[in-house]
């Protein structure tokens, strides 16, 4: 989903270009367009909870460090923040989660990688091993993300895309995509093994790891139903692993 950002601050623009290297291009095709107004440093701060609401056709996004609006009909919006990359990063994640939710997809707290032309997702909360399994990936695996997976629904299944949303590895994913072959729920243990889980547990875990912030009945319903649709079409299992590279022998 091409996003265009307007700013009059050249150094901020360069900061974004550096942060999103590999995901920046010159294109006339734009689906979301933001004007960024920069506040003086120190004006906004804090870790307040994210608030995302739809009012009269406009999404209002707010956290301690930013305010933003986005109108899907006009594809336009604005962001007010200080000159830092984290606020706009959060806005972009939220906007993508809203757009994906309407299309049957979602952003998932998971690492993902392509191997042999198929994408594998590794979901878990912070500390579950997303960064570790990404770091252990063999040379023939292409990392899509170590933190936030981008899942789109297609007629014949689901596709994972690379994202510039990084975690502890601080390494951008590759800007490529592949059909999703499996979702693994990460656990660390004394041996590498894959265990089946019930569809109900799969749906519960998927929903627990889905990024979604909006207080909106229709979208909550859409995300909820998408999780069940996903687990009915994509194999979901628990992957217990010792933190060493042999775990990738199970991922093919």
């Amino acid at each position, binding site marked *: 989903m091409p996003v265009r950002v307007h700013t009059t601050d050249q150094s901020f623009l360069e900061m974004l270009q550096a942060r999103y290297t590999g995901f920046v291009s010159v294109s006339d095709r734009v689906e979301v367009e933001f004007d960024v107004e920069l506040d003086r440093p120190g004006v906004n701060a804090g870790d307040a909870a994210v608030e995302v609401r739809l009012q009269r056709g406009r999404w209002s996004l707010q956290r301690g460090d930013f305010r933003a609006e986005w109108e899907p009909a006009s594809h336009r919006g604005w962001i007010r923040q200080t000159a830092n990359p984290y606020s706009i990063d959060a806005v972009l994640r939220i906007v993508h989660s809203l757009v994906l939710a309407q299309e049957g997809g979602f952003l998932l707290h998971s690492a993902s990688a392509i191997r042999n032309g198929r994408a594998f997702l590794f979901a878990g909360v912070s500390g579950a091993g997303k960064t570790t399994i990404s770091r252990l990936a063999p040379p023939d695996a292409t990392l899509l993300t170590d933190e936030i997976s981008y899942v789109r629904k297609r007629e014949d299944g689901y596709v994972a895309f690379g994202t510039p949303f990084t975690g502890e590895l601080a390494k951008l994913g590759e800007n490529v995509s592949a059909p999703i072959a499996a979702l693994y729920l990460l656990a660390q243990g004394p041996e590498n093994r894959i265990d089946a889980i*019930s*569809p*109900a547990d799969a*749906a*519960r875990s998927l*929903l*627990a790891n889905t990024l*979604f*912030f909006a*207080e*909106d*009945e229709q979208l*909550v*319903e859409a*995300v*909820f*139903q998408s999780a*069940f649709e996903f687990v009915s079409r994509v194999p979901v299992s628990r992957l217990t692993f010792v933190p060493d590279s042999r775990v990738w022998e199970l991922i093919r």
Partner: protein
Amino acid sequence: MNKLFVARNPRVAARSLDGEMMIMSARDSTLFTLNKTATILWQSADGTTPLDEIVQNRICTEFEVEREVALQDAEALARELASHEILQISEHPFPPAGGSR
């Protein structure tokens, strides 16, 4: 004791999988998994059947439990589910449109 009526809150997303009823609040996206009794209560909460009839016909037939005890437990459960905005409770029947999905 007055009659109590329970209705499913139409503002939640609900789905049953493998016999487990999962419900997500539209307000804050909190996910709930209902136990067997709560699932029976949810499925029976049509807004017009009094809670004591649900207990008599659906809960006491499923579990070995005295009717009075079951009714007390069901009322406490209904109030808890209502506090999470999963169910709505009232001393009067709900109008048809408000109580069904």
